[in-house]
């Protein structure tokens, strides 16, 4: 097989996944961190929802929207964070030079980071979904096939953002690290996690509809409140996600190219 930038080796992808798995396995604080925040979030919002449902008629009908939103938001946020943290581990350990000078291709690296974001999410979020059943009787898996559509769309968005942020860090060094932790919060008000899009000012609503997660959260509310699954929302989100993901990969490759031009790969500090 010709050795080009487009070659793809499952063995090299497995090597990177193994590297992150070894790291997770060797560090209990890392594992704890995966579970800690999703649990705190779910419990806090769960009790808030419990209080509201017992005091307001509408919310009594809309049972689960808050806690559902928390769990889905966590998929989006933790998905991106899982991707970015695996990438940051390479920067923190000054290993990125070893990887960039190895036969590992950018697409293989990205694939390994995507798979690991799912693994990290599974470790952190799956136990929390069971806690949600135990504490509040909310069964996320009760969303059925809709959950698959929600999950797929949210993961695609989280990867696209994670890929873009990783490119920025490669190009600009650890000074851009804060973006990895904070960029998703920019999306939080605009994607209408906890309220319908109609809550936003009219002029801001088109902006919200440009973001794929908005469709997911609207879809979730439609399912929980009106008991209606709206596949058109999921297809719109998917179309936007394809554009967003392609844009993220394109930006990553351009930023990597720029990092090579500016010598940033040799100086991965601040």
């Amino acid at each position, binding site marked *: 097989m010709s050795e080009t930038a487009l*070659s793809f080796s499952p063995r090299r992808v497995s090597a990177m996944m193994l590297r992150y798995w070894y*790291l997770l396995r060797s560090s209990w604080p890392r594992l704890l961190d995966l579970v800690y925040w999703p649990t705190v979030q779910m419990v806090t919002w769960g009790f808030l929802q419990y209080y509201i449902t017992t005091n307001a008629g509408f919310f009594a009908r809309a049972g689960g929207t808050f806690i559902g939103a928390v769990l889905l938001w966590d998929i989006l946020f933790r998905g991106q964070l899982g991707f970015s943290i695996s990438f940051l581990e390479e920067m923190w350990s000054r290993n990125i030079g070893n990887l960039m000078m190895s036969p590992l291709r950018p697409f293989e690296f990205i694939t390994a980071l995507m798979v690991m974001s799912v693994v990290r999410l599974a470790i952190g979020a799956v136990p929390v979904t069971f806690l949600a059943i135990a504490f509040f009787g909310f069964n996320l898996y009760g969303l059925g096939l809709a959950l698959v559509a929600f999950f797929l769309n949210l993961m695609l968005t989280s990867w696209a953002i994670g890929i873009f942020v990783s490119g920025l860090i490669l190009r600009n060094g650890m000074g851009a690290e804060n973006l990895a932790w904070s960029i998703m919060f920019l999306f939080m008000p605009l994607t209408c996690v906890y309220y319908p899009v109609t809550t936003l000012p009219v002029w801001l609503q088109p902006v919200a509809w440009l973001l794929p997660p908005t469709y997911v959260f609207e879809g979730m509310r439609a399912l929980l409140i009106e008991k209606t699954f709206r596949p058109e929302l999921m297809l719109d989100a998917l179309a936007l996600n394809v554009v967003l993901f392609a844009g993220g990969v394109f930006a990553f490759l351009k930023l990597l190219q720029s990092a*090579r031009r500016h010598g940033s790969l040799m100086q991965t500090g601040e």
Partner: protein
Amino acid sequence: MCAMPVPPPIEVDHLVKVYRTIPAVDGISFTLSPGSITGLLGGNGAGKTTTIATIMGLTTPTSGRVTVLGAEMPRQRYRVLQRMNFESPYVEVPMRLTVRQNMTVFGMLYGVEDLRERIAQLGRELDLTDLLDRPTGRLSAGQKTRVSLAKALINNPVVLLLDEPTASLDPDTADWVRAHLERYCRKHHATVLLASHNMAEVERLCERVIIMKRGRIEDDDTPAKLLARYGRRTLEEVFLDVARGNGEQREAAQ
């Protein structure tokens, strides 16, 4: 039928690398022959690391051309990265992973066959067998350097770039590492480019020395010829002459 000409392991042709407006490397050219060990000397900021990074495909030349085993870097790097490797103090192997885990990951990345045996072999050769299952971060500086060397040799590279390979090693361990490198190069007919500030090391290992200053090649010859040309007894004295411009003054006087 004529045999295809074998491309040189490393060929640098009028390489220029400018960061914004500052030239880090300013039009250097050299070719390394197969199986040779060449020292790259120069003070801090002379352009050694940029030269090595460009050969590895880590930075793009501003102008000029770098080829490794006939592949233009960085454009065609994937044709040759599997046959080359490097060691540098600017990068580390992950510290939380054990030595064996690190070797496994890098072995898989480089497509090493029979990886288990290769790790065991490197363990024996670099005296790492007892350390294989210890976290890399808990090793001494000298042991870590040996691990970095094991990573650099995991794929039996035919082109090896070494940036300060014995820095932070005690004299005995450093000597042991040099002996190992010599053996490795003889056995694998590997071509080595070695950047070092340790003149004794360069004198012992290298059959050719390239001295850089302010991004340019100031001199390029065998250690013996350099000593004779500068009328010095050690490479360190030659290096100081070049660094302080004594060579230029002498030439001007002549």
